[in-house]
């Protein structure tokens, strides 16, 4: 793990994620997606792509449609029009479980943990699902060394390996957040969607968490990451591309340098909700 | 809750042992040195709680009289009282009485469901058990073929038979259409079926225009009454017997169901004091079963009991008290007969054998325990009148029948017996 404060080292080609043979192939694609709630248009004509090897941020003021987009991208919501494809499968409304099986995981803005489960058990839940062992009524979790090994491995990446037998509810806020994310990583997803992974975390720790995340993604061979974030510093630091939403439409879809070079866009995104700069 | 209340609950709670109160004098040499323990299982709560409480008064009266006269074959009687609830828990209480309290005899039981379950359990435990009530012919044949230890109350619904006979006797030719409103359980079903079978037997042409089956304890019968009224029956037969009976009667009265309709209510005696004159008509056939508290020719025993009961409860007793008294006296007669024959304290088997055929003068009149362990008792029904000193109707005409006219003989099938029996009206 890198120490807090220093930026994450990018790979030689300037990318955040490790590049592999299939880098550049399309992982997620939306085609003209819109979502209406009665007369209210939450999303209109969203067409975006996420390629392997990319880390893309979705930004926008509150009410811009970020949550709806996240729910569409994670297969929770059906679209009103348009398609959402993940690795070529239409995933609109398929639900979280099948999404996880297809290879996409997510973390949550508000910490989602299993309060009474230990760190070890929490990560094991994902590992069991990943390994397809969930239907085993007659096996023992405790006696399964493969599960243990994987759980320790994942926990170690997030620095949780010393807290394996602690119930999640007693963890610090930062550790809870990490556990939430760690369990998503334990699914060994190809794509992971991180919904404000640093919300509720003190500014000083935010970079630490992001670094851990990118590090973990590299270790776990995550092919692409979607980051939903408010903090523009983090967005600037941890994106290959930034997609800005405004009133349910795409305002911009640009690399960070170009994004921040356009004061109008920055004002539109930042101006509506002041962002604390570190 | 303050201490005073807690104490009150403890004293009022009749559970536990009601000890013999009288000084023990001149024990016969053969008496054992401990009192005779009689376990009582009777409902206290729920819909049948009121029935159990009345029965218990009959038992207490019997025990007070027995103990005052020196006990049963010289041994005082003490009671251990348990609550009858559902079949499972009631059988557990039976086991407790037999195995833990080591009672000499168990009496009680009101519900037919519990009685059916308890019969085999008591037989298998060799527990001398005398039912107050609660048996119907359903299932009796297979579960209790030849009981050795269990003694049952009258075994088919004698009151339904008697009410049907009275309907024939008093109203033959006066009705064509009939309707029934009976509680939705085996008792109600059997009553209604027996009534129709008897009408057929006596060649009465009738049409059933409505049948209602309210769940026991239904307290809003407006729709049922409306449906009955719509069917315009000449006569209504009903074996309602719990809190729903006064509710029915009041609703029927206010809906004008009574005008032009005759009522035959074989089991109304359970609620006799709750059926007020204002809404209970004269001229209905009303069953008091084995105890009619206001019988003009009542014996001294009944008069004494009615006074005893009224003094304790400010109410007038119904037949469950008689059943309970009968059970206790039948036991006493059996023990004393067996004891006399053996001239030593008899075994349970000897007592049970001795009880077969014993005759007992119960509160309501003479009774007998048949050889097949089924009681014979005297039944009272009649036609209601308002000419009395009470706020509820009593019987103007009292019909009295002994149960040999009303229940099937040993081993017979009830429905076959109805077809073939020589019944005098």
């Amino acid at each position: 793990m890198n120490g807090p404060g220093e930026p994450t080292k990018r790979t030689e080609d300037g990318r955040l994620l490790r590049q592999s043979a299939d880098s550049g192939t399309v992982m997620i694609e939306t085609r003209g997606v819109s979502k209406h709630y009665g007369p209210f248009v939450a999303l209109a004509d969203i067409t975006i792509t996420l390629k392997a090897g990319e880390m893309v941020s979705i930004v926008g003021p509150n009410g811009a449609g970020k949550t709806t987009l996240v729910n569409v991208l994670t297969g929770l919501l059906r679209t009103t029009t348009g398609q959402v494809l993940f690795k070529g499968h239409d995933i609109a409304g398929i639900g979280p479980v099948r999404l996880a099986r297809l290879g996409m995981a997510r973390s949550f803005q508000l910490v989602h943990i299993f309060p009474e489960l230990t760190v070890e058990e929490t990560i094991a839940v994902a590992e069991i699902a990943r390994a397809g062992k969930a239907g085993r009524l007659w096996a023992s979790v405790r006696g399964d060394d493969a599960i243990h090994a994987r759980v320790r491995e994942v926990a170690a990446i997030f620095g949780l390996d010393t807290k394996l037998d602690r119930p999640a509810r007693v963890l610090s806020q930062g550790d809870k957040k990490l556990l939430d994310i760690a369990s998503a990583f334990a699914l060994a997803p190809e794509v992971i969607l991180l919904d404000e992974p640093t919300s509720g975390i003190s500014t000083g720790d935010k970079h630490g968490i992001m670094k851990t995340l990118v590090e973990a993604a590299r270790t776990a061979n995550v092919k692409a990451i979607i980051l939903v974030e408010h903090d523009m510093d983090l967005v600037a630091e941890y994106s290959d591309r930034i997609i800005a939403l405004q009133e349910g439409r795409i305002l911009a879809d640009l690399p960070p340098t170009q994004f921040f070079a356009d004061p109008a866009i920055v004002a539109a995104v930042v101006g509506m909700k002041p962002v604390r700069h570190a | 809750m303050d201490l005073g209340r807690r104490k009150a609950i403890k004293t009022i709670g009749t559970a536990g042992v009601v000890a013999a109160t009288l000084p023990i004098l001149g024990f016969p040499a053969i008496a054992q040195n401990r009192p005779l323990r009689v376990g009582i299982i009777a409902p206290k709560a729920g819909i049948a709680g009121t029935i159990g409480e009345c029965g218990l008064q009959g038992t207490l009266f019997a025990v007070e009289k027995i103990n005052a006269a020196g006990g049963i074959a010289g041994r005082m009687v003490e009671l251990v009282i348990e609550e009858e609830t559902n079949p499972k828990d009631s059988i557990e209480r039976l086991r407790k009485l037999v195995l833990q309290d080591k009672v000499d005899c168990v009496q009680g039981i009101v519900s037919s469901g519990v009685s059916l379950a308890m019969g085999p359990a008591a037989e298998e435990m060799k527990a001398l058990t005398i039912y107050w009530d609660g048996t119907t012919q359903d299932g009796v044949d297979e579960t209790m073929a030849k009981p050795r230890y269990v003694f049952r109350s009258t075994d088919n619904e004698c009151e339904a038979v008697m009410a049907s006979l009275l309907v024939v006797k008093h109203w033959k030719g006066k009705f064509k259409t009939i309707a029934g409103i009976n509680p939705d359980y085996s008792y109600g079903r059997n009553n209604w079926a027996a009534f129709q079978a008897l009408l057929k037997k006596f060649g009465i042409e009738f049409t059933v225009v409505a049948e209602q089956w309210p769940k026991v304890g239904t307290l809003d019968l407006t729709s049922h009454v409306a449906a009955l009224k719509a069917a315009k029956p000449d006569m209504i037969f009903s074996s309602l017997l719990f809190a729903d009976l006064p509710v029915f009667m009041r609703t029927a009265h206010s809906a004008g169901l009574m005008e032009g309709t005759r009522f035959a209510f074989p089991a109304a005696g359970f609620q006799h004091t709750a059926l007020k004159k204002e809404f209970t008509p004269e001229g209905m056939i009303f069953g008091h079963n084995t105890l009619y508290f206001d019988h003009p020719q009542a014996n001294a025993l009944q008069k004494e009991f009615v006074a005893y009961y009224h003094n304790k409860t400010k109410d007038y007793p119904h037949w469950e008290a008689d059943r309970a008294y009968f059970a206790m006296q039948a036991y006493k007669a059996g023990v004393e007969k067996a004891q006399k024959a053996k001239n030593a304290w008899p075994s349970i088997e000897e007592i049970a054998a001795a009880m077969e055929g014993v005759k007992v003068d119960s509160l309501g009149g003479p009774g007998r325990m048949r050889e097949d362990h089924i009681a014979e008792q005297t039944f009272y029904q009649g036609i209601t009148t308002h000419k009395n000193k009470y706020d509820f109707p009593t019987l103007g005409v009292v019909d009295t029948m002994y149960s040999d006219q009303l229940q099937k003989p040993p081993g017979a099938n009830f429905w076959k017996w109805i077809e073939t029996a020589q019944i005098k009206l």
Partner: protein
Amino acid sequence: MAAFINILLGGVFHAAVLFLVAAGLQIVFGVQKIVNLACGSFYALGAYFGVTTVTWALKAGLPPFLFLPVLIASGVVLAVIGPVIERLLRTVYDRDESFQLLLTFALVLMFQDIMRYFWGANPQQLGNLVMVYGKVGAGGVDLPVYNVLVIAGSIAIALILGGFLQRTRYGRILRATAENRAMTEALGVDVRRINVVVFTLGTVLGTVGGAFVVPTSAASLDMAVELVVEAFAVVVIGGLGSMRGALAGALVVGLMRAAAIALYAELELLSIYLVVILVLILRPSGLFGKPAE
């Protein structure tokens, strides 16, 4: 025709009774999110206490036609148990709702014996007092005035409650609390007080309902456990927490039952549960409830 109207009126009357049992359940669930299994016990308590009070008042010389106000007053007096029980429930507000449900189940057990302790096992009733107000009707339709009063009373209570919740400031606060407790608390509303008020209101609806209906019926020991199941059916059909739902649910159950009794009496009870299950499958939030989850 007269027969049909009689049966219909029977159904409406039963609906009115059920609404009175269910109304308290609804308001408590609506605001406090507690399913009160003891609502039937409050109703039974109101019935018993009403019989005792009126009997005593009549003995003390009350003219019979004045019994109704005394009866209602006796139900209102029982409001005193509301805050006491609310105090008990307060201990589990922050727990899982199963605990709240179980605590009210404990109350059901206790109330059964409390009532038996005071009133014994004999059912209690008010003789024919119900007919003091006479009856109305023509052409074969007969209806005691008191039944009309019960139906009118239910409608009045529904309207007053509805008006109170919709039109008054306090009612709006209650609804706001139902929507978002934390938010109302943040706005400076004393939620503790609201809990006491709402639970007491729910209790009084039950006790007054029980007292109000008892002249047409009787108070008996098992009514509490029997009624709560019917009340459940009503609120599930109408939608948990909704007053309009309670009214609609009561009407559905009342009329269903009347129809079953008139057409095929064997289906009386079964039909109610079948409707409940049907509603839960097709429209799980009930006719007027908000969707759950």
